[in-house]
């Protein structure tokens, strides 16, 4: 026992940084390991079953325990305050405290404390303490200094455990495959998991889950491993495990809503796109459906643009969607130069044409880059350089 303690204190003396790094509380991951649900803030130091007797704990250990306990209590008080505050707020707003959801809280705060700050994160907010305070790991080792996790000494136990899990899954699948082969059955191709619409969790998200810092190289290893897992023929058996780390990519085309055409005085359908921006040009475009291909820009013909390139740009969406002679276009544009104005009108026409064209063509237009707002702006000139990127000529002396 004394040896264990000395070992423990030696360990502490020698590895002060570990001790100083302790304060991180996990939520779900270690819960999985320890099969207990979200023991978040409670830093109950599980002593090893043998070391029940009271032992002299070193100062560093004491401090660590003290800190852990403080954090624990702090979180408890915060939670309590949050609950009370929530009920007060509900009363203030005249709502029922029992059914006051987080969304209601957000709306209430926005109403009571209107803020014009641009950064959403700088505005007043009221959320549960788990979201506000960053997650920390629970105690990683007990009073005697013995770590709970078997891979504690790698420095990133959660991450490496994850990798081991992947390998284990792969081994399981391989064994399954062998057994199936012996039986003569093959993997069912219909059940094969389709991962075209999925993306692995980003590095930041993975870090958030594991509550550990990850290297770029390690992240690449993780992605490679998951890809290999997915490529196995029986991967659909481990679908649950894989889905934990796969994030569905949003289907881009279905993101933006296509406006419905309105009817004007002559009974023609038309769609107006306002706020067509490109560089410094501002404009709005109206497209009318049963038309003759007439193009009016600021009251003038397409001759408003003298340059051939600008005219090509204006006609590009029409040519692409094959609506050249079928629609009429009226555009008003101001600001910027010919190129910017042409780009603004092009975007406006493309966005308006979506309402008159079928879904496949809309997808084609998106792939052609017609529906994407061009956010590029002129880059500013920096001091010490001649332009935005160009440096002054380097002279040796």
């Amino acid at each position: 026992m004394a040896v264990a303690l000395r070992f423990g204190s030696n360990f502490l003396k020698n590895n002060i940084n570990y001790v100083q790094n302790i304060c991180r509380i996990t939520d779900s991951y270690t819960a999985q390991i320890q099969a207990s649900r979200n023991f978040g803030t409670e830093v109950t130091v599980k002593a090893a079953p043998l070391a029940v007797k009271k032992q002299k704990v070193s100062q560093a250990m004491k401090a660590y325990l003290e800190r852990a306990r403080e954090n624990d209590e702090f979180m408890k008080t915060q939670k309590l305050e949050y609950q009370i505050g929530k009920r007060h707020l509900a009363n203030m707003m005249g709502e029922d405290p029992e059914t006051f959801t987080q969304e209601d809280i957000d709306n209430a705060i926005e109403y009571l404390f209107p803020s014009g700050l641009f950064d959403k994160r700088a505005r007043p907010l009221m959320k549960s303490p788990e979201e506000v305070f960053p997650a920390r790991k629970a105690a990683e080792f007990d009073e005697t200094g013995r770590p709970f996790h078997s891979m504690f000494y790698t420095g990133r136990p959660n991450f490496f455990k994850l990798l081991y899990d992947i390998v284990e899954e792969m081994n399981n699948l391989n064994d399954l495959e062998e057994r199936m082969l012996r039986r003569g059955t093959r993997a069912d191709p219909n059940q094969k998991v389709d991962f075209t619409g999925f993306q692995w969790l980003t590095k930041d998200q993975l870090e958030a889950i594991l509550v550990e810092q990850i290297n770029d190289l390690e992240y690449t290893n993780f992605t490679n491993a998951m890809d290999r897992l997915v490529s196995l023929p029986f991967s659909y058996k481990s679908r649950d495990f894989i889905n934990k780390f796969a994030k569905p990519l949003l289907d881009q085309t279905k993101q933006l809503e296509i406006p419905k055409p309105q009817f004007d005085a002559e009974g023609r359908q038309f769609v107006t796109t306002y706020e067509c921006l490109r560089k410094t040009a501002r404009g709005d475009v109206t497209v009318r459906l049963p038309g003759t291909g007439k193009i009016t820009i600021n009251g003038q013909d397409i001759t408003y643009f003298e340059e051939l390139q600008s005219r090509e740009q204006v006609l590009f969406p029409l040519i692409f969607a094959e609506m050249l002679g079928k629609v009429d276009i009226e555009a008003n544009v101001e600001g910027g130069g010919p190129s910017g104005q042409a780009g603004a009108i092009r975007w406006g026409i493309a966005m308006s044409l979506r309402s008159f064209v079928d879904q496949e063509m809309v997808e084609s237009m998106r792939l052609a880059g017609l529906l994407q707002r061009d956010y590029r702006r002129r880059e500013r000139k920096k001091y010490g350089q001649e332009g935005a990127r160009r440096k002054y000529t380097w002279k040796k002396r």
Partner: protein
Amino acid sequence: MLARHSLKLPRLTNMCASFCTATAEAAAEPLYNRPKLAPTDYRTGETNTDLHSKVHEAKFYTIAPEIKKQLFSGGGLPRQYEQQVKTFTETCLMVRPAGLELINYIRNTDFKRPAIRYVLYGDNGVGKTLIMAHALHYGLQNNFVLVHVPWVPNWMKRPKETANAAQEGFIDLPFDAAAWLVHFKTQNTNLLTKLQLKTSKDYVWSKREATPAGSTLLELVEHGIARIKFASETIAALLSELKQHASEDKCKVMVAIDGFNAFFHPETRVFGDHKQRITPDRITLTQPFLDITNYNWTNGVCILTVDKIGMTEGFMESYMPRYLLGKEGFEHLDPFVPVRVDNYSDKEFASCVQYYLDRNWIQKTPEGFDEQLKYLSNKNPYTLMQLTRSL
């Protein structure tokens, strides 16, 4: 031999792959089957302008090379058009509604009445000069004496040489005047020798030189060419003689002036004595042409063009005659018959494109190219010509 060094084939990146495909595609592109017009749809063999009518609208007719040389060797056709003529090895003009309208008016004029002024106006590149050329051809074929000024702003903006005129405070443009006389001569030699018009009074140029009354106009013209110093005065004399002869019913006169609004521009680029800019009315050449466009004579027609290009920056807001001529010019020309020249119609556009294809001017014919050309050029003849340069 080089291949023996196992060259590691470079990886095809995006652009190279697409370059290869671009070249391959360009080589193997099938000819787009657009509805081909038969030659009679865009050409006509009718070279007699008298017989041009609505049937021949939107069709090209050829002008024989000798006639072209006679009519236009001193100018009269736009520079780009001349190049085109050289490449296509033929001079083809399109019969357009504005041209037909003009020729109709001329055909039905009552020559007993004072001369009518027709003013062609329209946006840049719409075809005013070529319609005037069409009318000139008509004039030639119907025995009009042609008084044709190819492009007035040339005199105002790029004078070859200036000299002080005999009259006080006036500026002469000797070389330009002489050049114009040569041009006049080439155009009208045949007619003048046939008609044998004689001068009505004596013209004294200096102490030793004089042209007696009774000499033919051709002699007058030649004298002007020979003695450049008196060329401007010769022009004045010539034009007044012509007016007189026309009023006496001896000949028909057609006055065709391109860029007439340059005579009324607030200033020119001609420099006077003390390096001052001069207004057009201080140039000797202006006076005779302003004189002949008056309506105090019979048996003649005046065809004038007003063009935005003839003005300098700051005066190019609109292409309307009232704006371009200013108050003076408008009052001078009032009353006149305005003839508006527009962009091509669909039919004319199609026939123009067909003509270009026929002459191998348009080499590439991808799908839907004529529609694209139509909208890109807005059916403007000049823009169409510019666009098809690189096709």
